């Protein structure tokens, strides 16, 4: 297990890259990328068996991004892990990029499924989990969903399937930031008591602080010990986490920080002082 202090620093840099990437792109999704940062960092640095040199390694664990709009956090993580060169991050959403506005598995190393239409990832992940199990492959499958995304009926269809087939190798993570596009999840389409719903569907459920790297890692480890049911981690988070003017603001769901002053302010909130464009020229560890 990587030292928590170290992973906090990794998370800070991932958030930095998300902001720079989005500012450069001029469009894209800030809020749900920032809220999922620790979920992703604890998974990719502490838990997920993977080989950036060989993304299709048969013995890997699988990560499926169901809330495809949050791909900036996935791209930042994949680049930091070495799946592709860091400079690709600055081509996000531009013509001929390998980093499409929503993930495409045929263009980006490390992306298992194309996504962008919500409510399909849990079924895809469940299918992988079923396929691995049937073939005696011990790999685990992790899938990240939004909370608004839980509105989709297909999520609950997959919920039944995974429980029916005892997919104890399937771990869902719900980024519980209480915001979707039209506002607060409980005002638009209430979800609570969400944990009870998943329990009633036959899942093991953990409700934890999704920004606490230790709690996240512990939940993933508990999932690995489970020998019967699928697991759902409800990760309580703050949409836009780390950037003061984005936190808990529905309007920052699908907007990037503007180039210049605004992205500089976002980086400032994260504790970076170097000019924002300088981060494009240096490696992941450079902090200015």
């Amino acid at each position, binding site marked *: 297990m990587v030292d928590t202090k170290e992973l906090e620093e990794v998370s800070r840099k991932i958030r930095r890259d998300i902001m720079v990437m989005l500012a450069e*792109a*001029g*469009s*894209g999704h800030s809020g749900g990328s920032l809220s999922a940062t620790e979920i992703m960092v604890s998974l990719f640095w502490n838990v997920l068996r993977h080989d950036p040199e060989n993304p299709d390694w048969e013995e890997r664990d699988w990560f499926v991004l169901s809330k*495809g709009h949050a791909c900036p956090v996935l791209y930042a993580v994949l680049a930091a892990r070495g799946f592709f060169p860091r400079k690709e991050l600055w081509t996000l*959403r*531009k*013509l*001929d*990029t390998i*980093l*499409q*506005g*929503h993930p*495409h598995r045929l263009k980006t190393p490390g992306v298992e499924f*194309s*996504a*962008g*239409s*919500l*409510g399909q990832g849990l079924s895809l992940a469940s299918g992988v989990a079923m396929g691995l199990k049937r073939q005696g492959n011990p790999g685990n499958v992790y899938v990240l969903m939004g909370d*608004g*995304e839980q*509105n*989709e*009926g297909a999520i609950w269809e997959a919920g039944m399937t995974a429980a029916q087939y005892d997919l104890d190798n399937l771990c869902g993570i719900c980024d519980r930031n209480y915001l*979707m*596009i*039209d506002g607060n999840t409980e005002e*638009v*389409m209430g979800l609570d008591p969400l944990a009870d719903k998943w329990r009633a569907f036959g899942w093991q459920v953990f409700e934890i602080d999704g920004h606490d790297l230790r709690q996240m890692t512990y939940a993933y480890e508990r999932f690995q010990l489970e020998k019967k049911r699928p697991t759902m981690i409800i990760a309580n988070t703050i949409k836009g986490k780390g950037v003061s003017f984005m936190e808990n603001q529905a309007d920052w769901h699908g907007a990037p920080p503007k180039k210049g002053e605004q992205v500089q302010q976002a980086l400032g909130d994260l504790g970076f002082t170097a000019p924002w464009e300088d981060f494009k020229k240096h490696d992941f560890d450079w902090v200015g």
Partner: protein
Amino acid sequence: MGDIREEARLVDYRKGVEEVPSRDGYGHGLLWLCENDERVVVCDADLAKSTRTIWVRDKYPEKFIDFGIAEQDMLAEAGGLSRTGLVPFVTTYGVFVAGRAWDQIRTSICYGELNVKIGGAHGGISVGPDGPTHQSLEEIPLMRVLPGMTLVVPTDAHEAKKATIWAASHEGPVYLRFGREGVPVITTEETPFTVGRAEVYRDGDDVAIIACGPLVYEALVAADALAKDGVDARVINCHTIKPLDVDTIVTAAKECGAVVTAEEAQVYGGLGGCVAEVLCQQHPVPMRIVGIEDVFGESGSPRELLDRYGMNSGNIAAKVKEVIAMKS
């Protein structure tokens, strides 16, 4: 040489155009309906800002229903609402409605002849940087194969508003396709608009360019370029894909002897497909279809994508040259 028809009452687009997204016309149409038709309710699936139904949510909150991110539910719920006498306008992006909820639209709504109106936003590749997952290129074939469906692809914001208001007056399912980007406003309040009737905007008898959506503007620009080369193109705004204005299309084929269609959508089964079905049975002429050639799009700016995937005025003019060469 033909020219723009006086009675089309178009904007003098050669002097420059204002660019407005057609989804704005939908929003304005909905506001008008909320004021004037008490049966109307407006439904969305967590995309109120992008689809402009937020204008209704802000001004007439009692007429707005958010179903959350649950498009299949929303479509069937709208079917239920319609059976109580309300006229629901359900709204989300084209992919998530025409695709995701197609079976609800087919069996509950069209087969059951329910009075549900569908606003499909973000049609076309000009959706841009969000990429292929959000660029809806298939709604035209998906919707037009359904018996009882009316399918309109407005060319600009004005026409979108007219189509939206018309939809409430029509009994039965209607699908309206809108775009995300600002596109040239070429029509005016006075431009004739009748659902089911294609409008000839420019006279000409060497070739007919039949277009829908924002490509009508590209067709007009192509016609101007072609005129310099001595080619006299008729330009038709075929905003209603279903029911198709067969008379105007067959007449154009007879009088011009060659046809090019243009749409911001897959080439299979769309406007080009409709026109080809009609012409090969009634009056075959050389024909070409401008659209996306059986591939998914990619991220990029709207203009870059229209150019790369062959849907600008130059591409239309090039196809015109091809059919003209085939005429002799």
